[in-house]
């Protein structure tokens, strides 16, 4: 496939600073040379390319917004978004790995952890020496995490943890899990280390989506957790929800990468595929599809840049993140489907990235808050009425 120079119909690049563009170029080149050549194989096999983790770490992709004293790049959130966009242009699985590391493991340690926890874990995670995962969702509690049944009980010198988590990205390969459990009825965060007696993380098999990502269950059977592994400032359900908000922000950006990949494939294919007397790009029905794709990509790009500027200015509301995550995931899936139509039968082959993105986006639309839950979050914000069942 020809090298992508990026879709930018509205000169949105003019809204980016020089360093933000450089970050995008670095990650774009990384994806072209390290991800695209291997992703089809891993998607077929259902395996995560773990050998890319040290390379991602070397570039500074893990926890890029955190302070330099932890070995991080201390970049702004627009740069972070562009990283997510470029990674997802490669594959949502790779972006998911980086999202989980940055937004769901390093962020909660940074935000809710003790100085000792930050000093110990953040540099190791930034270097990719340790991999993390995040355990909130349970088999029976997805959109309603507050109902979780995983429990921590205080015992001498620490806590005893019992319960199970599900749909955990990186679970089986993780060295640590940030696990949310109720302690005296209040949700609290714990750092659970691989090797703690009674803790297992079997991989979930049979996924037709995010196949190049590891998804696992986390099972806690009387796991003793030392006192020092409690996140001291993480009490309350709002803490994991703050983490999810970080992750959703990254997803809003990430899916634009998959949109660009699908659009680019469809455009190139349409220009070269001849049916009847001319390339299919010369027929009105194809042009309409391509124009609608481009229009939505352009809108999402502009939405994201302003979302990032609001976040960097400390003015971002979580409902705005919901709007962007909700819209962009829906649109990305629409674009993947339109692209598949333009590619005809070829669209189902993994020679083209379209079907892989389409399958991945089914997960992305659902995780970190389903499309429906984000609708209700925004609905509540604009009407003042809660449509959630209490």
């Amino acid at each position, binding site marked *: 496939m*020809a*090298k*992508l*120079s*990026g879709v*930018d119909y509205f*000169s949105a*690049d003019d809204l980016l600073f*020089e*360093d933000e*563009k*450089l*970050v995008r*170029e*670095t990650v774009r*080149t*990384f994806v072209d040379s390290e991800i695209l050549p291997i992703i089809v194989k891993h998607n077929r096999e259902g395996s995560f390319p773990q050998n890319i983790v040290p390379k991602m770490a*070397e*570039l*500074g*992709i893990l926890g*890029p917004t955190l302070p*330099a004293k932890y070995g991080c*790049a*201390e*970049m702004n959130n627009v*740069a972070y978004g562009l990283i997510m966009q470029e990674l997802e242009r490669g594959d949502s699985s790779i972006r998911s790995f980086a999202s989980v590391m940055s937004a769901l493991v390093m962020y909660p340690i940074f935000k809710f952890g003790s100085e000792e926890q930050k000093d110990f874990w953040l540099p190791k995670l930034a270097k990719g020496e340790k991999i993390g995962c995040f355990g909130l969702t349970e088999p029976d509690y997805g959109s309603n995490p507050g109902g979780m049944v995983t429990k921590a009980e205080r015992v001498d010198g620490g806590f005893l943890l019992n319960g199970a988590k599900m749909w955990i990205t990186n679970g089986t390969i993780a060295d640590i899990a940030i696990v949310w459990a109720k302690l005296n009825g209040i949700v609290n965060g714990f750092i659970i280390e691989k090797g703690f007696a009674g803790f297992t993380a079997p991989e979930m098999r049979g996924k037709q989506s995010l196949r190049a990502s590891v998804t696992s269950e986390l099972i806690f059977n009387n796991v003793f957790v030392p006192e020092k592994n409690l996140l001291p400032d993480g009490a309350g359900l709002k803490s994991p929800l703050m983490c999810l908000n970080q992750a959703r922000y990254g997803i809003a950006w990430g899916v634009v990468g998959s949109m660009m990949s699908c659009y680019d494939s469809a455009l190139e294919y349409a220009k070269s595929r001849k049916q009847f007397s001319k390339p299919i790009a010369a027929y009105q029905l194809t042009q309409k599809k391509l124009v609608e794709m481009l229009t939505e990509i352009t809108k999402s790009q502009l939405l994201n840049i302003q979302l990032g500027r609001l976040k960097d200015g400390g003015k971002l509301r979580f409902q705005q993140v919901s709007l962007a995550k909700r819209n962009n995931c829906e649109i990305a899936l629409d674009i993947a489907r339109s692209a598949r139509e333009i590619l005809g039968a070829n669209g189902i082959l993994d020679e083209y990235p379209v079907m892989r993105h389409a399958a991945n986006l089914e997960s992305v639309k659902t995780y970190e808050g389903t499309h429906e839950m984000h609708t209700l979050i925004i609905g509540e914000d604009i009407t003042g009425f809660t449509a959630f069942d209490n």
Partner: protein
Amino acid sequence: MKIAVCVSHVPDTATRIKIAADQKSIDPAGVSFVLNPYDEYAVEEALKTKEKFGGEVVVLSVGGDRVKETIRKSLAMGVDEGVHLKTDEALDSFAIAQALADEIKSLGSELVFMGKQSVDYDSGMVGQLTAELLSFNSISVCVTFNLDGNTITAEREIEGGKEIVETSLPCIITAQKGLNEPRYASLKGIMAAKKKVIQEKPVASTPALVENLQLKMPTAKNPGRILGTDSSAVPELVKLLHEEAKVI
């Protein structure tokens, strides 16, 4: 040792180029520009040389404000400081070489790296012209570079093979693909580059020796050729792939 590396800011090879209304330049609208790929090898070799022997690396680029992006990218890869030789005119190779030579002289640098050519205008002359203006030695189209004391040994790519040559400092090396594997500008490198200094200096006017009259788009590609339908066509195919298509 002060090592200079000269870079140019060129349209990304993936970008579709349009000729501007004047018929002499590229319409920059919608074109993304990058660090010239051959200059990336030059930056990498300069950084490797510094890592081996110490000293500092200074990046030079001639052009309008836009070239600062490429200077910044070089700084993000690890170059220590930048000099922007500013001009809004489209200079010919000689004028560019003159501007670079003047600055290299004032820097006191005796080892200079640059790409063998820029992928925009492809004249491939600036390295040798600059060396001549400075009375430096030069080795072009290098695929290996080795510095030992004052002596440089390098391999050059020539038609169908390689040539091993030796010279001494001061010298200009022009880089060919294969010289090294350029490093990424890491995120930390990008952040560090924000604090590095880019000096801006106006370019003294040098009359052009070559005038660009007109740019033309290439003619459309020839259709495919069928060389034969059985194994007897293989030798001819291999020959053409090697000599004409240059892919094997």
